[in-house]
């Protein structure tokens, strides 16, 4: 059976295996691998490997691990993978703010199998890893060109970590200047880490409510938040509503006028790369998520990279090691910085495989291609907004008549009023049509019954049409056959998981020990 050509809807059913927990598959003595004993000559020279571990760190009893052979382990995880949805099998437009683009598989093969990357170690002598250092150096060069910033660092392991790094730089900068500034200003629709990470560094957080008409704070409100105590502003633009603040430079100027620095959260720069740059907007520090915009698979907390960009006057504060290039073209690592550095925020020089993927992606597109990718992402979103906003029950908050850039936050508020079914119900039904569920919104849910969609540059018109058809169909079902939606999903391995289960300690079981307790297993 092929997908219905008229409705674009699939008859889909996900695999269901009723797979046991791997501990339940354990047979005493069964093994996946039998590591060979060390050669006697090695034992003669180094002794028993166990003795290399300090006494205080050795465990007295064997760990309680499942004992399962390779074939059964492989089958177990293949089955579990069939019970999940991912963007390799589904149209993953729903994960708004996550920039779920296609990451070419050749990048994966290079990163995972090419010995030139898999067999190097960051403690090697730099002269023996010139290749990866050159990749770092080149990606830094491309990032500088895209942002206009003067220097980049790829050490942070993700976006919130990059914001943490930027907040640490700001703290040190003002300490060195002897200025007592302990507040940061952010906006309610900026990424939550723009408040959370600086708070972790020790800053007080001043959060700005959005203007109910334009969707982001007015300049007047913004100025009311600034004072001689403000160390920096941390703002996302476009915010997760998809609305771009075209007067951002005036906000930055207002921050500079009180002596504060300006930090641009560009975790998702997919709609504006090659079009508008942080430098021209006046920012002092920025970050990009290489695992969003720059094509590393994103999600599942996998390895990421929050690339931090800084202006010249903050160069010395960047984490070490810095990658350097001398006049002979030799690359090296500078571990000392110029003395002002905040030190290391992660071991060695970060997730090299993410930087390498970004390198491959950027090299394959070139500068014109990067700009074209942004334009495709924006065009896709314009097409999609026009379709989604016509679905009965959907409303769009803020910025009436204004274009959304690369994503949009919608609301099922009207649908909920009309049918009693809201965003949580709709998202659970999506899997029945072979779509991964969408993402609602960062907290707080000021936009009621929210959902956030982002059709990145990778999706074709047909992908978007299929996704929209699913949304339209579910909205129709909410009005006509609500029970079907309320009891969804029907075609997935697990049914009726409610969001509030996450908060119930009796329903969330993270360990085998707890599992045994709850289910009374001996």
């Amino acid at each position, binding site marked *: 059976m092929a997908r219905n050509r008229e409705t674009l809807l699939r008859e889909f059913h996900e695999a269901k295996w009723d797979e046991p927990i791997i501990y339940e598959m354990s047979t005493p003595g069964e093994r996946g691998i039998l590591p060979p004993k060390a050669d006697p000559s090695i034992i003669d020279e180094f002794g028993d490997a166990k003795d290399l571990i300090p006494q205080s760190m050795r465990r007295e009893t064997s760990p309680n691990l499942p004992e399962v052979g390779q074939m059964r382990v492989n089958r177990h995880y293949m089955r579990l993978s069939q019970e999940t949805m991912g963007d390799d099998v589904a149209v993953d437009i729903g994960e708004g703010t996550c920039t779920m683009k296609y990451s070419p598989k050749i990048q994966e093969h290079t990163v995972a199998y090419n010995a030139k990357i898999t067999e190097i170690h960051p403690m090697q002598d730099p002269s023996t890893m010139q290749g990866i250092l050159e990749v770092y150096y080149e990606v830094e060069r491309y990032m500088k060109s895209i942002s206009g910033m003067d220097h980049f660092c790829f050490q942070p392991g993700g976006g919130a970590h990059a914001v943490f790094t930027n907040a640490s730089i700001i703290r040190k900068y003002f300490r060195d200047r002897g200025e007592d500034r302990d507040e940061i200003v952010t906006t309610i629709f900026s990424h939550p880490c723009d408040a959370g990470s600086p708070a972790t560094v020790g800053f007080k957080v001043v959060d700005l409510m959005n203007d109910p008409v334009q969707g982001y704070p007015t300049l007047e409100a913004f100025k009311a938040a600034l004072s001689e105590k403000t160390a920096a502003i941390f703002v996302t633009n476009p915010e997760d509503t998809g609305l771009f603040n075209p007067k951002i430079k005036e906000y930055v100027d207002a921050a500079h006028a009180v002596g504060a620095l300006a930090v641009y959260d560009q975790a998702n720069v997919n709609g504006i790369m090659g079009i508008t740059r942080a430098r021209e907007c006046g920012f002092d520090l920025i970050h990009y998520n290489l695992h969003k915009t720059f094509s590393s698979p994103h999600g599942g907390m996998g390895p990421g990279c929050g690339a931090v960009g800084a202006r010249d006057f903050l160069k010395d504060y960047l984490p070490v090691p810095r990658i350097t290039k001398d006049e002979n073209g030799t690359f090296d690592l500078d571990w000392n910085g110029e003395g002002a550095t905040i030190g290391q925020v992660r071991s060695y020089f970060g997730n090299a495989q993410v930087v390498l993927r970004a390198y491959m992606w950027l090299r394959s597109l070139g500068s014109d291609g990067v700009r074209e990718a942004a334009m495709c992402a924006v065009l896709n979103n314009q097409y999609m907004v026009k379709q989604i906003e016509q679905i009965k029950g959907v409303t769009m908050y803020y910025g009436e008549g204004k274009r959304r850039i690369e994503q949009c936050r919608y609301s099922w508020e009207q649908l909920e009023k009309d*049918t*009693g079914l809201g965003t949580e119900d709709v998202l659970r039904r999506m899997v029945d049509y072979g779509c991964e569920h969408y993402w609602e919104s960062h907290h*707080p849910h000021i936009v009621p019954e929210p959902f956030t969609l982002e059709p990145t540059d990778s999706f074709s018109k047909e992908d978007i049409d299929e996704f929209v058809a699913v949304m339209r169909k579910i909205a129709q079902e909410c009005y006509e056959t609500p029970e079907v939606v309320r009891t969804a999903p029907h075609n997935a391995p697990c049914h009726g998981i409610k969001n509030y289960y996450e908060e119930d300690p009796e329903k969330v079981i993270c360990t085998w020990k707890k599992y045994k307790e709850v289910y009374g297993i001996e």
Partner: protein
Amino acid sequence: MKKIGLIVNPIAGIGGPVGLKGSDGEDIQKLALSKGAVKESGKRAEAAFALVGTCKDDILLYCGPGEMGETIAKNLELEHQVVPAIHSNTTAADTEFVAAQMKDLGVDLIAFAGGDGTARNVLNAVGDEVPVIGIPAGVKIHSGVFATSPAAAGRLIEAFVKTKAVKFQPAEVIDLNEEDYRQGRIGDTFYGYMSVPVIGSGMQNPKAASHNSENDVGGICQEIREKMQREDPDTVYILCAGSTVYSLKQDLGIDGTLLGIDVIQGNKLIGRDVSADELREIIHTNQCRLILTAIGGQGHIFGRGNQQLAPDIIRHIGTDHIWIIATASKIYGLPQQTLFVDTGDASLDEELRGYRRVIVGWQETLICRVM
């Protein structure tokens, strides 16, 4: 097994569709029916309870007689016991009578369908001793005890029965004087607090209470303590009404009031439930800080529930010496996230307007518009 009470005010909301701005009072109800109004609240309650079907075996249902709940239980084939009322044609007294009996029966939760008037009746009968969920079915829905919709109420009841992840928090009961409202004057009154379960989102106020950081009363108290340490030790603190400020009073170990204004100095109570005149005397000789909160779901910081703060008193304290505290979720739940002032003095109101900081946690403030 949870004991759930169901009370429907069958005439709630009948004044709305025929343009009567409310349904309080027998004359209005008769007028509404004569104008062709249809009783809708039962349907709304039924819509809510239809969603409870999946956990009906875990519920012991108590309901009011006939249209007050029994009919719904029968329609949905839910096992139930009927709690008797006084009259055959339901009045406010019946709501109170049934709710009081449910309290005596030890129900875990009362779900009631109605509007702000019905909420007041339930409040009169059970206070904050029995948790409630309001199923919105009236004309006026301003109180924070209501779910955002009948379906949201149903989901909340289901979650209440199915999960142990339930916290409770006080929510305001607010009502308009309908006669004033019909004359075009808005004069809403705060009547008290009832206890509501917090499970994910779903309550009218807070609209998005699901993250701890959005309900960080402990953090607010800590922030205020630290601010107090930076002040002159002789500073007098005027602590206003409301549940957030009451939590602060408890945190400071003060035997203060929920609905009144209390005054402390050096962490000692020097005035309890004070009047405007008593306040005038205190502020005359002391440097003061005013600590207040906004009314949930509505947003007033002056002019509602704290009328003791006469304009001359606010001026004397100084508009720069006001500390506004509120949970972030309360601010998010306000219409357009805006605060309001209505001191009765137009020029003072103008001075208080603009953008103000609201303390929402430890080292955390929100900048809000004041209108």
